[in-house]
């Protein structure tokens, strides 16, 4: 008898989410480089090939634009393809297909054709990877109307958000924080369930400052919040969906605390932090007690791994940023 739930890592939850949806809906196919026999370079598609066969877990030629471009054709033809881009740093050859076509197929056909597709890509740094393996350029996709952008931070959410993304009628960019693929385990139900897109989660309640973050940065943010406990009462809001931005949750938290910081590992300029701050300025100016702090990566290409720890925000930097906002 199957277990009702299991302790899974985040990457196992990805696999579990793919598995339950593939069982439920035979239009769901997984495609990409090494996703088949090899089970994915991070094992995110492990054993799916054996169970569902080569027509549903498809090892493709090494060609990102081809993978996403053909997935668009499949999706328009009624299937539910899940193309995998092995690392977000390799997504740019497919960027044209994603922004020029997936994002606007519904618009430019006035609803006749749609693109129910989930592009999965491990993103972010901190795993001592080579060049082009550590990018987190989610803002580029958030900027594109027609796409949804989702970043889970826990195994439970990963399966639930991925399930929602697969069932969603629109194209979803699903960014997996590979830094925490195996960092911890969490109870994940064996049955399928949905965590709705577009809703943030308050990971820690607090009254002094709202800290907004997502994905791999959620854990060091929570760590910083714990370190400051007793001194500063920090609320941590995990956005989970970056597009459409869960504006209500962002504003509600801020109106409670009056101070805010944004933590993301992407470069500062034009990053999503700027959009969050603009939203607060538009919606909650009169609640604002201090400038909003941005604790982010730098406006440099992601460094080679000997220096990546300086680049990535971690608990100490986040603590300092929070203090700056509170002590203004």
């Amino acid at each position, binding site marked *: 008898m199957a277990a009702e739930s299991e302790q899974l890592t985040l990457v196992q939850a990805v696999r579990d989410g793919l598995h339950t949806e593939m069982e439920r809906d035979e239009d769901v*196919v997984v495609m990409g480089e090494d996703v088949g026999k090899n089970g994915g370079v991070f094992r995110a598609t492990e054993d799916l090939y054996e169970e569902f066969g080569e*027509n549903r877990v498809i090892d*493709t*030629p090494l*060609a990102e*634009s*081809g993978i*996403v*471009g*053909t*997935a*668009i*054709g*499949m*999706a*328009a*033809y*009624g*299937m539910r*393809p899940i193309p995998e881009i092995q690392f977000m740093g390799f997504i740019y*050859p497919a960027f*044209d*297909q994603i922004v*020029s*076509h997936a994002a606007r*197929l*519904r*618009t*430019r*056909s*006035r*609803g*006749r*054709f*749609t693109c129910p597709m989930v592009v999965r890509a491990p993103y972010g740094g901190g795993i001592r990877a080579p060049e082009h393996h550590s990018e987190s350029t989610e803002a580029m996709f958030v900027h594109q*109307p*027609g796409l*949804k952008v989702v970043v889970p931070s826990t195994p439970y959410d990963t399966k639930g958000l991925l399930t929602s993304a697969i069932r969603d*009628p*629109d194209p979803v960019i699903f960014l997996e924080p590979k830094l925490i693929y195996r960092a911890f385990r969490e109870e994940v139900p064996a049955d399928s369930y949905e965590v709705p897109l*577009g809703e943030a989660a308050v990971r820690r309640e607090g009254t002094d400052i709202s800290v907004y973050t997502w994905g791999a940065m959620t854990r060091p943010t929570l760590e910083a919040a714990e370190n400051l406990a007793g001194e500063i009462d920090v609320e941590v809001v995990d956005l989970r969906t970056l597009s*459409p*931005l869960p*504006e*209500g949750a962002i504003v509600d938290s801020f109106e409670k605390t009056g101070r805010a910081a944004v933590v993301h590992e992407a470069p500062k300029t034009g990053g999503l932090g700027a959009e969050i701050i603009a939203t607060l300025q538009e919606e909650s100016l009169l609640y604002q007690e201090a400038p909003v702090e941005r604790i982010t990566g730098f406006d440099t290409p992601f460094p080679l791994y000997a220096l990546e720890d300086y680049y990535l925000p971690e608990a100490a930097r986040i603590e300092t940023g929070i203090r700056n906002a509170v002590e203004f």
Partner: protein
Amino acid sequence: MSTIQRDPRDRVQVLDEAGRVLEDADVPDLSEAKLVEMYEQMRLARRFDERAVSLQRQGRMGTFPPLSGQEGSQIASAHALEEDDWVFPSYREHGVGLVRGLSLERTLLYWMGHEQGSYVPEDVNVFSVAVPIATQIPHAVGAAWASRLRGERNAFLCYFGDGATSEGDFHEGLNFAGVFDTPTVFFCNNNQWAISVPRERQTASATLAQKASAYGFEGVQVDGMDPLAVYKVTRDAVEKARDPGAGELRPTLIEAVQYRFGAHTTADDPSVYRDADEVERWKQKDPIPRLENYLRRRDVLDDGRVDAIEDRIEDRVAEAIETAEASTRPEPDEIFAHVYEGMPKRLRRQLEYVESIRDRHGDDALLEG
């Protein structure tokens, strides 16, 4: 042997420039009625094109990509399809759309900038036009692949130009098609010029057709201004996509060698980059008189029938223009209507904002001219 199993440099031709059947030519089996229909549609596409360019010049329409010279390729290839087959066009296939059931009014509306012009009715198996070059090629492969995985027997005809063969998506699409044996027919409208850059600047290959051999399937070159040859080759390719012979792969790359008589779009001036002599030379191959002479020689057409066709065409184009121009300006909610299945809160608020500025200022103040 099938027409498409040949040296890619061996150009398929049925009619000479005067519309006479060449010796040993493989004349496709088409009824007289079908041939006359093709002729009429080619004439209609030509006349539509002339009027559309004129509308643009008069400021009654936006930028338009004319097709004159390419009617033989477009009309004849589209006739090679069955009803359930699919077309993945670029942006110049107004003639193909016409054959497949897309109204001229809708094509005009699209180029007049009305969002509704993008809508392809449910009973028309034509994908949305793709303006970025070669990007539709992987879509056609993906859809063909999905269709095959579902156990259907449909063929997918994908159009693009000679410039598209330089793009990565051309390579990636054809490569996937070969690897996954998808029922896709790649139809390259080699009209010699990618805006101002000649075919010789796109590739050092002797032909575009021969590129197919890199992907493991046939490439065939056809006289794109010879409608009978285009029909024959496309029909064979479509049939192979459905029912390949033993050891054959389903995809085919067709290089239809032709010429666009006019500009790439109404935004460029071809006299800057090509000689009048060159245009005149290609005009000798014009597909319309070629088919007309063939049909007159077979006593299928005479002056009376041609005049009647001309009258019908004139009326139809005039009517399409009248209908399109009578369409009222779409409401701004059209911009927001189809971004996502449901409208996110942010978008709804932006729509409300548009409505509020309309209320405050009135459309007259907001709209130019």
